[in-house]
């Protein structure tokens, strides 16, 4: 859906999406890294389980919700990637404690 421009010379950052290593760049938000990665980052909504991807990328729509380092319902578009970050794609509702 998206690809990186050749002029992007930012250093790489490795994150893990559902346990699989994904190459991101320093300064990417989690959502941008997911959309650039080509992996299936669709979450399933809490209400009907419908598949969704980020819509607004500016902190408004909450369609980018992901679990980051064990904390659920984070807005992936507002969180910058960090080395070794563990991302989980959310399928349905969160459970208590995460």
């Amino acid at each position, binding site marked *: 859906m*998206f*690809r990186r421009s050749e002029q992007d*010379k930012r250093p790489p950052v490795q994150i893990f999406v559902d346990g699989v290593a994904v190459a991101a760049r320093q300064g990417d938000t989690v959502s941008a890294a997911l959309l650039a990665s080509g992996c299936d980052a669709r979450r399933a909504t809490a*209400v009907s389980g*419908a598949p969704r991807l980020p819509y607004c*990328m500016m*902190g*408004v729509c909450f369609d980018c919700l992901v679990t980051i380092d064990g904390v659920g319902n984070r807005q992936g578009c507002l969180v910058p990637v960090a080395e070794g970050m563990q991302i989980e794609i959310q399928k349905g509702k969160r459970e208590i404690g995460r």
Partner: protein
Amino acid sequence: MSVAPKREDYDVVVIGAGPAGLAAAATSAEAGLSTLLLDENIGPGGQVFRAISSTPVTERSQLGADYWVGAELVQALRASNAEIIHRATVWSLDRNLEIAVSIGGASAFVKAKRVILATGALERPFPIPGWTLPGVMTAGAAQTMLKSSALVPDGRTVIAGQGPLLWLLAAQILRLGGRIDRILDTTERGNYFAALPHAFAFLTSPYFAKGLSMMREVKAKVQVVSGVTELSASGDGQLASVSYVAGGKRETMPADLLLLHQGVVPNVNLAMAAGVEHRWDDLQLCWSPVLDASGNSTVPGIAIAGDGAGIGGANAAVVRGRIAARAAVEALAPAAVAKLAPMATLRSDLAKAERGRVFLDKLFRPAPQFRIPAGDTIVCRCEEVTARDVLDSVAIGATGPNQLKAYRRTGMGPCQGRLCGLTVTELMAQARGKTPQEIGYYRLRAPVKPITLAELAAVPKSEADVKAVVRG
């Protein structure tokens, strides 16, 4: 890196580090007022100057000269004594000018003598069939990724809608070597006539020549279909095609990415939750705060600058930020105003920056069918409520957006009405034969962004707080 505010009290707290917030905080700090700037994003710039200090797009002409103006604003702010905290989400502001802000998973509280809200704008909802499908995004979303991560559309890409941002985005995508298959222009033909009487002001504004050359640049490379009157996205769990009607003819084309845009509207959540009165703006078709000429709202001590005060664009936002900050300085430290630009100069700057705005508002007034959906088109993305659901609720007695919450939970999901509120107001107004002003808006309350229960529970409590809720 998650640093709490250094003090508990400030003269001025500015919320939002876009053009208005950057200018307001720099002006306030320059006059010697203790100034705190709180911003939700990773770095300064807001949306229009997003990633201004970190963008990997190094070829300056690709983002355009208007973008790089932001670097000067950031420089001016950094040269001042203002305290700046990013990744700081303000979740409460009340009439006592007490602010609750979430930073790194913990909440801090600060009190201000003056608050300047510079929370800007967000994309107007574009509720067409299929707009919740993965692969359908806002034009602003694509621009955010382009500026902050140098990402460009790769697959079959369609851009649909209207307004200056749409053409700017298209030009930027093409300059960075991205792909656009087609642009679907939804501007109503009648709008050209409605806008005509206001054309002179626009012709003499700086936007005219820039806009024209950008459209020319895009039209040389991309097929543009104008007069689009119907639009829908479809696919099974992922966008597969875009269907549209132009000149009475329906066409369907395969697509991997659909970028939607029909203008921006004020982001009202924090201001409304603080009790600031808003009125329905019939020209811009949105809620705008009731403000005096210096941006002061109906809540004493709270001013609003930038697009949150009514859409005016980045240049106007900068001046509005300076005006609001100067008014704060006049009130708190009158002796210091001598250091600042005179109010008369600022007001004439503002008039200049707002030149041609009415023309744009009239020309790019979104068509009713793209604002007021029907049938099973989703209105509330969070709670997955359709237009039919809303109309059914009206039929059995729902009178306005707040009653509708009890019927259907619209606006009660995590986005708190940001992407359905305008649609719900206009849809209910139409169904009930009332004006949007009569129908009203969601009653917004803190927390205006979701925070965890653990974070709320960890908030320091006074003895009085505990006594208020504990029995016996």
